[in-house]
């Protein structure tokens, strides 16, 4: 039942967002200048039509780290909730868990994966 409220709210927000998307088309003026729809290129002509394919970002490794640590977080959430009942056993469990993953973090650190666009650090 609680989720129904969320669902209703979601639907409502969706409607409002769509209103915002189309409101300018309805209310705004329309003009057609030759270059007005050019993407911003600092006032010089546009040579490559598509900027989308030309951009290369090296930091997908950050995405990888996010993935792994999100899973870690996903296991930590239920653990945090039941930690009260697990006692010392729970502590050892999570200590091992964190230890293993911290090792992974340290490994990535050492290999320079944490560096932005991961330039190789001298090992």
């Amino acid at each position, binding site marked *: *039942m*609680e*989720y*129904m*409220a*969320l669902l*209703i*709210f979601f639907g*409502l*927000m*969706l409607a*409002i*967002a*769509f209103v*915002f*998307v189309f*409101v*300018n*088309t309805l209310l*705004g*003026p*329309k*003009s057609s200048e030759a270059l007005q*729809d*050019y*993407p*911003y*290129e600092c006032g010089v002509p*546009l040579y490559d*039509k598509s*900027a*989308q394919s030309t*951009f290369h*970002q090296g*930091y997908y490794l*950050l*995405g990888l*780290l*996010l993935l792994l*640590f*999100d899973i870690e*977080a996903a296991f*930590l*959430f239920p653990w*945090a*909730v*039941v*930690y*009260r009942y697990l*006692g010392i056993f729970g*502590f050892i469990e*999570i*200590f091992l868990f*964190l230890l293993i993953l*911290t090792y992974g*973090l340290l490994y990535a*650190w050492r290999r320079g994966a*944490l*560096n*932005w666009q991961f330039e190789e650090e001298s090992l």
Partner: protein
Amino acid sequence: MEGLVIWLIVTFVKILVILGIVLGVGAYLTLVERKVAAHIQRRPGPMVVGWHGLLQPLADGLKLLTKEDLFPRYGNRFLYNLALVLALVPATLVFAVIPFGPEFEVFGVKVKPILTDVNIGLLLVFALGSMAVFAIALAGWASNSKYALIGSMRKAGIVISYEVVITFAAMGPLILAGTLSTYHIVQSQIEQGLWYVWLQPIAFVVYMFAMLAETGRVPFDIQEAEAELVTGFTVEYGGMKFGLFPLVEWYIEVLSLSAIAVVLFLGGWSPINIPFLGFVDPLFFLGPLSPFIWFILKVSLLFLFVLWLHWTLPRYRIDQITETAWKVMLPLTLLNILLTAILAPILWR
């Protein structure tokens, strides 16, 4: 059947309140920001529209609404618009799990001032919060502008880095409270007579930094670093669409994350806390309204603090930001979790 009707009425009232906060308060926070910035810079700020510029947000909104709808050449119109939806909807949905005060009774109906009190509330917050990445990535990609693309990639890099940090920072209070429901976290703080900030100073500082980073506030506002990227991923947006991105990022998200910070660390609607002794309420004369006032007060203080930082500090560079997240903040939070795990049983006893 009658129960359903009452439930529906209550739900709609709650939704209206949240909408008011999101769109009304959000818009007026622009004025607050402009005034604060202006006075820090020895200017009066907006003064023309209304008394001391009180009608300025309305004028701005009206202006934005009547702008021409521009769309960049060679872009992708569907994704360009979808990005806006993806930015606005998850950011506002977060308000659904924020408790504004304790349960109270009106006309014989018990009302919890929280839209959906579920026992995975915090998980929802972080899940929805990181949905912003898609909006940003799509906005930059669909605009087909190099500047927008660089800006969106920067922002996405920051959000994914600090998403982990913020989740881990929130873990400390979670261990102490033993629940994922935002409402119960506050309640357990009140029962234990302790704001968790006293036990979690590291987590609180880290959380604040992560919050600034997620919302793109100074010192982490590199996604729209004016001097480098003009306005970053919103560079190709115009009119209300352009207005909504900062609204979502700088106001709605800051508000919701401040509220979560208040819930996690500052005891929600509880009055001033003396550690392990109890609560002192200088606002007792307001009676049942006092918890709500306290909540609003705490959130607005946090918001003003964010503004104050924004208009004082310079900004970091993208590599420094992400590296700080992984190399400083994440180990700190891991340490904090371990410390809390050791500390928590003592507290419970």
